């Protein structure tokens, strides 16, 4: 059934009741939607079993007319899954188990009393918070790219359309010229969300005005930073936002063919994307003569094998063409000569997902959010040593402190914050003294890091910054394609030096050596991967030089991480002889009778840290 421009509006009207329930406008006794989170995090916490249990229980009590169970994409509060949100009244249930379901249905939907024990509590003794938006994790967020997260069933195009989906496409097709679309995106101030922050409208204009036909557009969904899952989540929770963004971009640029290059390791995202593409084609939103107009465009999906360097646009194009994924020198830029030598525009998932909202709500609205040079919002995956791990979307200009402490809820177990790593292996570590840095493209660069695609790893006093630097340079060394000598050879030398330091074999002068090597590599490497690879090392030296010095001069790891430099010992005063350490030691090197002080055989100890983590009396210490 191919739709026309008018049909879309009619379809939207038909689903007006659904939209009003989801937006929280309806009355709870009329109709209730139970939104079960089916993002990757919640699914692996068995949210689909929760869904089945809810459906069964609701049917058992004959409530199916009034209460509907819907699966949605990721809510972002991944640490507290499985999550169910009750609409329209916005009640948030978390950490659900199948056993909780009968009680939940009985109390909330039969008796009308929401179940407090299944709600979020900021701290053990505190009152539970019923409404989702009152939870601090959600309160400071502002959703644009993730506007539909947890609100629509990603596998149903009708739900996307009901919540203003494809309104932007209808607008550009019925009342805007391609040039006007480009002007609107330029006026919004949108910059690439993949890392470098190039102005999106300008990029589109370059491609549109480049000589050569046909023109192509590409979505970069090759998200590869360790600990980052922004793009995956957008594709999983709102695939049509990406498709609509690409459709608008294709119209503006004059492209008739598009590609989504996505990691094969994202099975759920791939599944939902494939379904979304099928539905869009069925409805006449992709293919020949879209919505009855003369505009034609289609998208194919290309699966990447997970090489980090494919996130770099020229490598991605090489891979898409079936060649070895190696970057090449720019210029020519893809806008001039990209896929098959034709003008090509690449944006990442989050950038594309912002586009429909900018068109629908206007560039003035978008540019009113954020800072002077960085407009709108940014999605971050907040992970590491932070209480509320998950996916957050925040206005540009918010401080790091607000993200880590207000949204993230601070550091677990009362430990001390040490650093936050942004920008993945290309980024850097930002120390406590810079926590009030506003999060925008320029400020992060000034701090020695980058915005990157949005990974944000929080570290506490138990993270060794030398080890962190070693980990990241090890990652880039493995992922370096090996084409240019500074990245291939240079990062390998840096890795060797860092390994020596973490083994206690560092020498005086190694810090300066690393700094100089890093600066040379940044100057001479071919692509962004190599040019940014030294950042984690350079920033940790800049802010945590004392830790490097402790490793080199005193052969000591202050955070107690580097195995060669530490020893686990049991404090006789504190040991109660509970035997927990001895029972759990994988190499049985802890001896001692019950209720007597235990002792670790240093010769046989493999320094796995098991005794340290199982001891309930803080009796195991790291020397």
């Amino acid at each position, binding site marked *: 059934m191919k739709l026309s421009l008018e049909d879309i509006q009619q379809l939207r009207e038909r689903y007006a009741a659904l939209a009003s329930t989801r937006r929280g406008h309806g009355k709870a006794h009329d109709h209730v939607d139970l939104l079960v989170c089916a993002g990757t995090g919640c699914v692996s916490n068995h949210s689909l079993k929760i869904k089945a249990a809810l459906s069964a229980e609701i049917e058992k009590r004959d409530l199916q007319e009034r209460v509907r169970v819907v699966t949605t994409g990721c809510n972002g509060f991944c640490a507290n899954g499985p999550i169910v949100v009750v609409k329209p009244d916005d009640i948030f249930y978390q950490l659900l188990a199948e056993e909780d379901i009968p009680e939940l249905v009985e109390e909330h939907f039969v008796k009308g009393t929401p179940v407090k024990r299944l709600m979020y509590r900021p701290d053990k003794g505190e009152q539970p918070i019923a409404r989702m938006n009152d939870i601090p994790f959600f309160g400071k967020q502002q959703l644009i790219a993730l506007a539909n997260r947890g609100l629509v069933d990603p596998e149903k195009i009708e739900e996307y359309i009901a919540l203003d989906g494809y309104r932007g496409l209808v607008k550009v097709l019925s009342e805007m010229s391609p040039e006007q679309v480009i002007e609107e995106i330029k006026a919004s101030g949108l910059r690439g969300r993949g890392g470098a922050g190039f102005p999106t409208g300008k990029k589109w204009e370059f491609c549109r005005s480049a000589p050569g036909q046909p023109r192509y557009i590409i979505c970069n969904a090759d998200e590869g930073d360790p600990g980052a899952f922004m793009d995956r989540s957008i594709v999983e929770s709102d695939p049509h936002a990406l498709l609509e963004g690409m459709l608008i971009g294709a119209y503006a640029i004059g492209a008739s063919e598009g590609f989504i290059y996505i990691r094969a390791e994202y099975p759920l995202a791939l599944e939902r994307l494939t379904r979304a593409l099928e539905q869009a084609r069925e409805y006449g939103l992709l293919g020949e003569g879209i919505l009855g107009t003369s505009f034609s465009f289609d998208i194919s999906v290309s699966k990447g094998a997970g090489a980090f360097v494919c996130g770099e646009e020229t490598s991605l194009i090489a891979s898409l063409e079936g060649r070895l994924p190696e970057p090449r020198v720019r210029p020519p830029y893809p806008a001039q000569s990209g896929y098959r030598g034709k003008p090509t525009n690449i944006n990442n998932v989050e950038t594309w997902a912002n586009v429909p909202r900018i068109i629908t709500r206007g560039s003035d609205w978008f540019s009113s959010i954020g800072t002077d040079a960085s407009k709108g919002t940014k999605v971050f995956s907040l992970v590491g040593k932070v209480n509320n791990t998950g996916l957050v979307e925040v206005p540009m200009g918010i401080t790091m402190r607000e993200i880590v402490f207000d949204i993230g809820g601070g550091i677990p177990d009362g430990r001390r914050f040490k650093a936050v790593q942004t920008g993945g292996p290309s980024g850097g570590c930002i120390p406590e003294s810079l926590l009030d840095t506003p999060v925008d493209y320029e400020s992060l660069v000034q701090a020695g890091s980058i915005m990157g695609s949005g990974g944000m790893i929080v570290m506490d006093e138990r993270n060794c910054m030398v080890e962190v630097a070693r980990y990241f340079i090890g990652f880039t060394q493995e992922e370096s*394609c090996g084409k240019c000598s500074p990245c291939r*050879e240079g990062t390998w030398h840096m890795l060797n030096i860092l390994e020596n330091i973490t083994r206690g074999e560092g020498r005086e002068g190694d810090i300066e050596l690393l700094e100089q090597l890093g600066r040379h590599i940044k100057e*001479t490497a071919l692509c962004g991967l190599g040019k940014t690879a030294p950042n984690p090392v350079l920033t940790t030296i800049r802010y945590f030089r004392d830790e490097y010095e402790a490793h080199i001069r005193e052969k000591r790891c202050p955070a107690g991480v580097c195995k060669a430099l530490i020893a686990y010992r049991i404090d006789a005063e504190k040991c109660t002889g509970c035997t927990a350490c001895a029972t759990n030691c994988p190499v049985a090197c802890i001896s001692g009778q019950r209720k007597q002080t235990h002792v670790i055989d240093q010769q046989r100890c493999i320094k796995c840290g098991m005794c340290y983590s199982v001891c309930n009396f803080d009796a195991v210490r790291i020397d």
Partner: protein
Amino acid sequence: MAVITIDGRQLEFEQTLTILEAAKRLQIKIPTLCYNEHLSPYGGCRICLVEAASAAAPDRSRLVPACTTPAENGMTVSTDSDRVRDERRFIIELFLSRCPEAEPIRKMAAEMGVDPQGGNLDTVGEYLLHRAPRRAATNCILCGLCVRVCQQIPERYALSLKNRGIHRKVTPPFERVAESCIGCGSCAYVCPTKTITIEEAD
């Protein structure tokens, strides 16, 4: 007619050409390792880096590979600035650390004043040439000339690059004797370090 200035000397040009080609016309020598005028440029070895500024931003010069960067009207290029010499030295030290026996590398290093036994090495040079571990006993500098020549001249595709990062190497497909190899010897001919040799088959 466009004009490019290299080391203070101007060249007028009409057709598209690279900085390296422009420099050649002015008889300005830029060192190269992965370049061969008959093959597509690669930009991998980084030894031909020069400092270039566009007419639009004359104060913002960038280091770019001369072999792949197109000459632009109003561009100013410096092939022998301190910055260029400093980075070129770093690159040749990386190669010398990888392949200390490779003759063309030693020669190029000597020309740039890098003497492994001399006393003028800086911190990085000292490390790379005296302390750094060596990964493999090979004279292959991974310039990829052999791979490109095989693809572009006899069009046999008998050689390719395998693995990533420091593990990268040149090999026939699947590390077997390439059926498509016609023994033309092009690869051995272009190899700057003579790592590829031709054997007579029975």
